[in-house]
């Protein structure tokens, strides 16, 4: 069963319907009105396209839930949150190898953020 990671730790998934976007989604097709909940795929932790897709969705005015799903590492949690994701979805195996404390250690994603300094 997948696990949902938020700033306060691990959660069981809820039943809300998500629109799935692959990491190679054409940014021209991103429509903030298309769904209330969007899930962006991370096929690999080295594939950073999802961070830019999330950012563009937010810049275009998307206000719904944004979820990063797949091979996202605890070390990337702060990046995901800063890019505009609300939460991360990982599988059991990854959660076992990277337990909750490792994610909570990066939950202070607002701290030490050059971007917020540059943008005021």
């Amino acid at each position: 069963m997948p696990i949902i990671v938020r700033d306060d730790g691990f959660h069981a998934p809820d039943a809300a319907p998500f629109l799935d976007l692959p990491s190679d989604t054409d940014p021209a097709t991103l429509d903030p009105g298309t769904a209330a909940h969007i899930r962006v795929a991370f096929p690999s932790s080295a594939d950073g396209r999802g961070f830019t897709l999330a950012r563009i969705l937010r810049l275009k005015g998307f206000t719904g839930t944004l979820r990063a799903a797949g091979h996202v590492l605890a070390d990337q949690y702060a990046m995901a949150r800063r890019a505009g994701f609300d939460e991360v979805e990982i599988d059991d195996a990854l959660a076992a190898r990277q337990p909750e404390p490792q994610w909570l250690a990066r939950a202070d994603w607002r701290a030490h953020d050059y971007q917020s300094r540059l943008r005021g």
Partner: protein
Amino acid sequence: MYSYTDFDAAFVAERNRQFRAQVARRIDGSLTEDEFKPFRLMNGVYLQLHAYMLRVAIPYGTLRAEQMEMLAHLAETWDKGYGHFTTRQNIQYNWPTLGDIPEMLDALASVEMHAIQTSGNTIRNVTADHFAGAAADEIADPRPVAELIRQWSTDHPEFQALPRKFKVAVTGAQADRAVIRAHDIGLRLHEQNGDLGAEVIVGGGLGRTPMIGKTIADHVSLDDLPAYLEAVVSVWNLLGRRDNKYKARIKITVHEHGIDEIRARVEDRFALIRPTFTGAHMDLYEEIRAQFAPPGFRNAPTDAFDTAYAADPVFRAWADTNLSAHKAPGYAIAQISLKAHGATPGDASAEQMRVMARIARAYGHDELRISHEQNVVLPHVHKSDLPEIHAILKAHGLATANIGLISDIIACPGMDYCALATARSIPIAQQIATRFDELKLEHDVGDLKIKISGCINACGHHHVGHIGILGLDRAGVENYQVTLGGDHTETLALGDRTGPGFSAEEIVPAIERIVTAYLNHRENAEESFLQAYRRLGMEPFKQALYGDAAKRSQAA
């Protein structure tokens, strides 16, 4: 010079704490080697042929004396007593253990240095003109812009898992000393109707597919620059190829899509991003700029320089090759060559680093620079101090008078250290330098840049050397290809291949034949190698290299 704010210091401390934990989690198995790799890379840690290698950033090549002393301390404490300055204004330590690296990073942080984003698929250390703030031909100081870019790119949440590495270089002078057209983004600062901004050049790079960068925007105001850079990297992050790492750099994206399509996409993205910068970035820029105010130059006679110049031929030779024009009267820019004949290009011992730091503190307004040509620069020295500086340098093997000459060779670490290399570079550089020193020809030959890479990734910039040497592996045997006519300056050009390559034993005599052909064919001593090549073309050099064999094979 820039000093860390409390924010910068806290950021680096936290980052070091995280990396220490990542190292621990790698050891306890929470992170697989594949998962750990991007984190060690974005903190400057490589796995090389013999050991881990730590690459420390020297942002835009600028150092204070205490920082150079810390580099010496690292070399002595955790390495074998030396460090290697690179073509990207970094320093590399080749022999640390993984367990020691968190300690090294904490030591660096104590003097406001780090190794963040010196490797990995991130925006790398920003480089700049090594004569910044000193050069007589400067229009705008690139360092404040480079520092702003350092802060913007550091830990940028969108850009930590890019298709490939991304390199930015900045210049603000008429001459290009930062090879900006061979970077993913090159910025040339200039003023347009009183507005400071940058020409933005995109898609340059060397490597296996060398490309000269193209201008994507003639003038982007400083106010718009962070948003514009973000738009470029954002477009490439989605568009850049992830199926083949050799086609992932932005130069290929620009080549495949065309500069006009890239420009249109960037302008669309820029429109989306620009409103998120509401002015704080310009306040920050002004704070940064204030820290780069020129030092208090003194007004003093230069008689001591003139006397030594007239009386001492060794000092005169050094002054003629190693000094450049400074914008302040009575001052000079002095280069300290790390290319003593027969030494490893770019290497400095801990003792030499300490000597250079001491000179900078006593005579150089506490400033040092690292050039992409792997030398050290004293950017602000009063001419009257130069005889004393020269005497100290001479006593420590640092007074080689060869800047810009044939023995001032850029060479990558090659097969002596690098896991990617296909041939040795350092011994070839050493042999060429030693040979031309024996011949006592190099001052007569004049301006001639040899650049050597030990594989097609081109870290030694061979494509833009007047003479470029590329070491390859041909069925287990080192083979060196030669290119002629490359140019690393504002008239950037890629060299042309002469023909078949040469073995390790043949390459030094081959270079000698090229140089002899130049000396025989040049119109006069004023005509440089590059000028002669441009006038004469390849033919006389081909003849010198291959002789009648070339004709025979053409006939056959």
